[in-house]
């Protein structure tokens, strides 16, 4: 396949988005809306074809598909061209972007299929599919971008789609508020992204990833020391962008609110793909981060704090989607912890496994919500296992994976993270904080088990709290929803073997054939990882993997037991339908800490300043002085001086004469002198 065909990967979903958008707009006022079958076909076909193309173009890394070029790189046109700055529009399909594309398009296509079932009855079906397809296109551009601005194009594009989809049911003001909040939080991060890009440009002289990596790899110690502050600044500023996109502290508060969107959106955008873009970007710029160690320490600490905060907040949620959202925030913290300890490929592995099990969990939650006709309060569920078997199956495997019980996807990736943290070396002052962080991470893993088991218990395992009528009307899961659920459930179970492999020698398959991820990213990430290791030597491995796996499993099992034991009877009291689901008391304070901080430090001051400036400067000072000037002008020009106000013509002429006299005076002074 030709590298020039790369553009097709984002273009296919984009084309589907455009057609669906046109259909949606064209039929917006019709009684029936766009033809659903056509919309659904287009919507699923776009991402599915992209997935197929990705596989067809799959860049090999000495793996099973020998003989293909390692990296596809295509430049299409000059995006910016001018005397100050020039930038070609380049798409890249290397191992890193290929891995991301694999699950972005693959899981994306599955979630599109799921959405067909989930949203079929919605009036805005075509509009929804248009946004989803547009999101796919933007996400693909983000992943395939060959330079920071191209990535930024996708970066804000996914932000836009996220905005549109969170606010999809925009009649609800709260939903529209949540959408706007998400966009603005992301914008804050995006400013960091831009400033970081400028800093990088002034250091490395280019915004192209290859050139930046090249510069970082080839720069000698003296140059690095000289550019040190600017490098750290660039790394931190870009990390601010990642914080925005991946909902890390201090920009974490938008993601839980984003659950206002339809559940497939939460699964696709706010769990599997978009929110991991921050991790992806840090990995993409791994060469930069390893030469800016302080920045990487910040990444580690932020990830750690976010993981802990998210896990604790996840404990107190009543809304099933909110609980999963805080779980996502927490898991993203894990990914950043991995990246912060220099294990970029492990971070991406967790991104990969997380995409499967979190998508499975969200889609299962969606099936539950669909089954219960938009009931999201877990206190009003319970005992759903026999009623929604497929949802239960997917949720169960997802739970298995996220909790980190042996052999599911999350088990491997979480253990790898703990291992790298425990052995890692990140200096804060003179202190090596990596092992401390590993302790916090272990605690967080335990908490994860507790709150995820709480979710499972409240929804599936505790006694049923539905009244008879609601129980009779539980909607079955349609086929379009079941198929993706089952595939993702399977994925959450086996995705982990993509790193560790399976002993399948008996079948004639080489041992590393399945474990493709472990070495797959090496062409991109091995160099920075090794550089980091060289500069920050890790301890001996020895029997540690087994020890950590054992401890991790123990903690997870303990957490799960606690979770089940505490909530197996369901909540103390069952609230009435439609009551507030936000946690109150200390749980509320904890959950909304960052919201309130932003509210009091930024939102309110901006509005207050806006009103103050508007009323004081614009209206009072400028307004009154202008009004006075105008009254004076009127008095002179419009004849207020005259006894009779009608004498406007003469007064105007009088002014003309005065003006003439003034002009004459000027001429006399300057010319005649």
């Amino acid at each position, binding site marked *: 396949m030709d590298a020039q065909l790369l553009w097709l990967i984002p273009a296919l979903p984009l084309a589907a988005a455009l057609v669906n958008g046109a259909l949606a707009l064209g039929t917006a006022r019709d009684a029936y809306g766009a033809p659903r079958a056509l919309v659904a076909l287009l919507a699923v076909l776009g991402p599915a074809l992209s997935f197929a193309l990705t596989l067809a173009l799959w860049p090999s890394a000495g793996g099973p598909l020998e003989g293909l070029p390692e990296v596809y790189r295509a430049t299409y046109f000059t995006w910016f061209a001018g005397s100050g700055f020039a930038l070609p529009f380049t798409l890249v399909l290397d191992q890193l972007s290929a891995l991301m594309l694999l699950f972005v398009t693959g899981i994306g296509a599955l979630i599109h299929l799921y959405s067909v079932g989930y949203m079929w009855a919605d009036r805005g079906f075509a509009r929804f599919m248009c946004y989803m397809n547009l999101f796919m296109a933007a996400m693909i551009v983000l992943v395939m971008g060959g330079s920071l601005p191209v990535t930024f194009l996708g970066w804000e594009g996914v932000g836009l789609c996220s905005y549109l989809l969170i606010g999809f049911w925009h009649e609800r003001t709260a939903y529209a508020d949540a959408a706007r909040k998400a966009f603005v939080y992301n914008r804050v991060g995006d400013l960091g992204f831009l400033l970081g890009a400028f800093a990088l440009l002034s250091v490395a002289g280019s915004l192209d990833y290859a050139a930046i990596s090249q510069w970082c790899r080839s720069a000698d110690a003296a140059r690095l020391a000289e550019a040190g502050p600017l490098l750290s600044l660039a790394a931190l500023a870009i990390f601010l962008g990642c914080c925005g996109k991946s909902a890390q502290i201090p920009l974490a508060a938008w993601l839980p609110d984003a659950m206002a969107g339809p559940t497939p959106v939460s699964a696709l955008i706010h769990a599997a793909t978009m929110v991991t873009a921050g991790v992806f970007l840090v990995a993409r710029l791994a060469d930069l981060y390893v030469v800016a160690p302080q920045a990487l320490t910040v990444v580690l600490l932020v990830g750690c704090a976010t993981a802990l905060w998210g896990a604790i907040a996840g404990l107190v949620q009543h809304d099933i989607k909110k609980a999963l959202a805080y779980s996502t925030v927490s898991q993203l913290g894990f990914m950043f912890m991995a990246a912060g300890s220099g294990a970029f490929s492990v971070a991406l592995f967790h991104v990969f496994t997380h995409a499967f099990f979190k998508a499975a969990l969200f889609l299962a939650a969606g099936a539950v919500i669909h089954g219960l006709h938009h009931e999201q309060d877990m206190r009003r569920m319970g005992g759903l296992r026999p009623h929604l078997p497929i949802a239960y199956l997917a949720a169960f495997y997802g739970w298995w994976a996220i909790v980190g019980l042996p052999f599911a996807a999350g088990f491997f990736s979480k253990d790898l993270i703990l291992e790298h943290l425990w052995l890692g070396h990140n200096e804060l002052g003179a202190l090596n904080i990596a092992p401390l962080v590993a302790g916090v991470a272990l605690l967080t893993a335990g908490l994860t088990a507790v709150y995820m088991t709480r979710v499972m218990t409240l929804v599936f395992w505790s006694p049923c709290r539905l009244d008879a009528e609601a129980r009779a009307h539980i909607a079955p899961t349609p086929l379009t929803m079941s198929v993706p659920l089952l595939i993702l459930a399977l994925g959450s179970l086996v995705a982990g073997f993509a790193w560790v492999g399976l002993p399948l020698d008996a079948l004639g398959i080489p041992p590393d054939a399945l474990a493709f991820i472990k070495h797959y990213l090496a062409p991109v990430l091995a160099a920075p990882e090794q550089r980091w290791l060289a500069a920050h030597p890790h301890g001996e491995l020895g029997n540690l993997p087994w020890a950590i796996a054992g401890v991790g499993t123990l903690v997870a099992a303990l957490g799960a037991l606690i979770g089940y034991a505490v909530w197996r009877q369901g909540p103390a009291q069952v609230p009435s339908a439609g009551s507030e689901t936000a946690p109150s008391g200390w749980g509320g304070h904890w959950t909304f800490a960052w919201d309130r901080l932003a509210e009091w430090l930024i939102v309110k001051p901006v509005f207050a300043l806006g009103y103050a400036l508007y009323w004081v400067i614009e209206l009072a000072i400028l307004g009154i002085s202008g009004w006075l000037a105008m009254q004076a002008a009127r008095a002179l020009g419009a004849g207020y001086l005259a006894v*009779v106000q*009608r*004498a*406007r*013509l*003469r007064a105007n002429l009088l002014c003309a*004469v005065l003006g003439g006299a003034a002009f004459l005076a000027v001429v006399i002074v300057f010319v005649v002198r």
Partner: protein
Amino acid sequence: MPTDAAFFTPIHVQVLAALLFGLGLTAALARRDLFIVLMGIELMLNAVNLSFIGFARSHAGSASTLGQLAPLFTIAIAAAEACVALAMVVLLVRQQDTVDTDARSALKD
């Protein structure tokens, strides 16, 4: 004829023209009687004519003649202006029964 002995020079003609122009302007602006306003305008035109003729004395050849030619046009235009203006005054007086300029507010807005 010893012209150089004269006290008045062409510049005094110009000063006189300026003064008459000022008087005309005052009449046009300060008075509200339409007739007097019109007369003020005529006076201003006359002052300009005087200025032309005064300057004609300070040039030779066709430039001098031009100074005498220009007032011809002014006079013609003044005649046309008086013709139309008086017709309008008649019309206005018949319609509104006043010659007060400040009553002419129909023009504004």
